């Protein structure tokens, strides 16, 4: 007989036993111990040439199988009568219970896997930054987080699928006029209900574009199209549109 046993094929001795039981078309409630323990031993010998991380458990199970096998060979008549009419205990009973219990969770694991797969077909997006709407958080406010929240948040983040950056970011070298940037910036600001951060007005990380954007912002401030404010030193600079007036940048 030839065995091709993959290292990751089994999750442990119970898993291997279930595999054998299924393969040999054996009734789990009436396991032929001699046959199963022979097959089992053959298997773990074949596996021994591979690297196993749970070898000790496989060996313990091999011993258990041997022991059940030998107990089944013992005459049982006397025990049976002595224990006043109670059913004689099948030496296999504990093993069968374990196999059934394990099989239950193995099946449940398959169902969780389905849920996992299904869930991964639904895409989400990160929450918007609401801090520009909210009151300033003071250093004194009480923070209540625990490690699990932190880990959960991190994993959620890692799980979240993001739109890839375009493979070829083709930024044609073209002259951008300050007027064009001014109207784009105004549009950006007016498209949002909340004030925008200063850094958002610099979407293209290229020097010429950034310089033009900066000059456009200065010009808009001068023309009183936008307000720029900063709560305190080093805090984010927020830009908002001057309500009502709209002279430049209308399309």
């Amino acid at each position, binding site marked *: 007989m030839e065995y091709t046993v993959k290292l990751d094929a089994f999750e442990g001795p119970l898993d291997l036993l279930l595999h054998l039981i299924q393969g040999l078309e054996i009734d789990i409630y009436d396991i032929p111990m001699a046959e199963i323990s022979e097959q089992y031993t053959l298997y773990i010998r074949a596996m021994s040439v591979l690297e196993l991380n749970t070898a000790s458990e496989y060996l313990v199970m091999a011993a258990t199988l041997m022991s059940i096998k030998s107990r089944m060979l013992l005459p049982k008549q006397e025990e049976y009568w002595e224990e006043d009419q109670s059913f004689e205990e099948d030496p296999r009973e504990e093993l069968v219970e374990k196999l059934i219990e394990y099989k239950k969770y193995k099946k449940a694991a398959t169902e969780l896997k389905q849920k996992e797969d*299904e869930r991964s077909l639904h895409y989400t997006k990160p929450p918007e930054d609401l801090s520009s709407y909210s009151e300033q958080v003071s250093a004194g406010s009480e923070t209540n987080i625990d490690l699990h929240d932190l880990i959960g948040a991190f994993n959620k983040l890692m799980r979240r699928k993001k739109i890839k950056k375009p493979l070829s970011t083709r930024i044609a070298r073209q002259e951008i006029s300050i007027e064009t940037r001014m109207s784009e910036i105004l549009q950006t600001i007016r498209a949002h209900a909340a004030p925008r951060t200063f850094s958002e007005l610099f979407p293209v990380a290229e020097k010429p574009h950034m310089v033009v954007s900066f000059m456009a912002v200065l010009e808009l401030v001068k023309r009183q199209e936008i307000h720029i404010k900063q709560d305190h030193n080093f805090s984010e600079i927020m830009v908002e549109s001057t309500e009502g007036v709209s002279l430049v940048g209308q399309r």
Partner: protein
Amino acid sequence: MDSDNQNAIIEGLLFTAGDSGLSEDQIAEALNMVVSEIADLMKSIAAQYEEDPSRGLEIAAYAGKYQFVTKKSLAAHIKLLADSPSPSSLTQAGLETLAIIAYKQPVTRVQIEEVRGVKTDGPVHTLIARGLIKEVGRNEGAGRAILYGTTAEFLDYLGLKDLSELPPLPEDIDDENEDSDLFFESLRNGLSANE
């Protein structure tokens, strides 16, 4: 507030919240409504999204919080453009361990190992690191072993509203595809033969 307006507000709020989701309390507050009215309202809005083929979003209630997610049918299109930093799904060992914890919680590592028949330190660590399980207490008595339970991230990860949405634990091993009757028969035969 007319219902158009209400729908618009909820759309805006759900979009803003992204995958952090919104609790019924939060929705009630933003709409200036009573919390007890929110569940029905969300149910009816969710139905509108679901039924409208021109909508790409639907409303999910993972871990008890409402959030927009894209419809399953769009996955292929979005996949063309999207990528996740760690797309790896759980290993078989991880799934088995997670299943045992999910259904038996709170549960100790030794109890998990009794079911699986193998050491389970590795999978337990992985599940903690992935935020799917956490320490929920200590066992009474000697040793005071750590008890594990599932997290909100677990519910979100599997797309469940709460633990009651877990698929029922298969109570016996009668797989439909495994000739259960045959097994049952032979069990009976085996038992009567023993008598």
